């Protein structure tokens, strides 16, 4: 009994940091209830949505490249998983940055569909 508890706990502990980028595409598609579109994601990412900034203002229109913070000029490592293996491997970070950056660019949270589309586009970049 005790052993199975320890094993279960260990599985949960490792599971918490075992995400890969495709997991987020699957999660957001499931939440949205529809398939993602990389093409729609590209448009969403590069166009301003009513605010002062688009996603590309900091992450560039080609997120396989490094970006710069639009206000502080601080270097930002590439966002696309193909160029940066650390991206989209930690659910807490993914949720934190979508929350903050959607608020900054849209003045609201992003829908699951918008997040799925962006994931699909980022995953398509080589």
């Amino acid at each position: 009994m005790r052993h199975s508890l320890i094993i279960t706990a260990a599985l949960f502990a490792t599971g918490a940091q075992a995400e890969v980028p495709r997991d987020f595409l699957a999660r957001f598609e499931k939440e949205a209830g529809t398939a993602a579109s990389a093409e729609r994601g590209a448009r969403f990412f590069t166009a301003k949505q009513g605010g002062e900034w688009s996603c590309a203002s900091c992450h560039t229109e080609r997120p396989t490249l490094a970006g710069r913070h639009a206000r502080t000029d601080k270097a930002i490592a590439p966002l696309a998983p193909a160029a940066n293996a650390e991206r989209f491997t930690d659910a807490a970070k993914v949720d934190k940055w979508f929350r903050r950056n959607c608020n900054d660019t849209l003045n609201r949270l992003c829908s699951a569909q918008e997040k799925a589309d962006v994931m699909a586009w980022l995953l398509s970049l080589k």
Partner: protein
Amino acid sequence: MKKLIALPALLAVLALPAHADNYSVPKHAAFQEECTSCHMAYPPQMLDADSWRAVMNGLSKHFGSDASIDQKRRAAIADFLVAHAGGRKTGGTRDANGKPLLRISETARFEKKHREIAAATWQRASIKSPANCTACHAQAAAGDYNERSIRIPK
């Protein structure tokens, strides 16, 4: 004899530059990770405790950006900043209404130290704003804001 020993010691103290403050940032993992993802690590010593509390209580509108973080880390970073906050040395740290200033660049000490810098200089593309310490203080990240290390870019 006593006087002979005291004199060199006194001279040594007088020779120390008055502006040789140490602004190196104490180690703190959550502070480093959360705060430096968007900007350089501003030294906790540059604001007083009330200002840091106000900054950390307003992260969802942090100078125009949503910088909100989870409650546990927010409290830990606030404690760290308050513990290392500057005292009197930061100069005036309240605005005209008595509210704590949020920007280091608005404190009396900062303004006094930068009084020779023209408004147009701050706006150069190579500098951008008073928040960009490293533009002129190349060693700022190491806590060195000494006059001898300053190079103002064109």
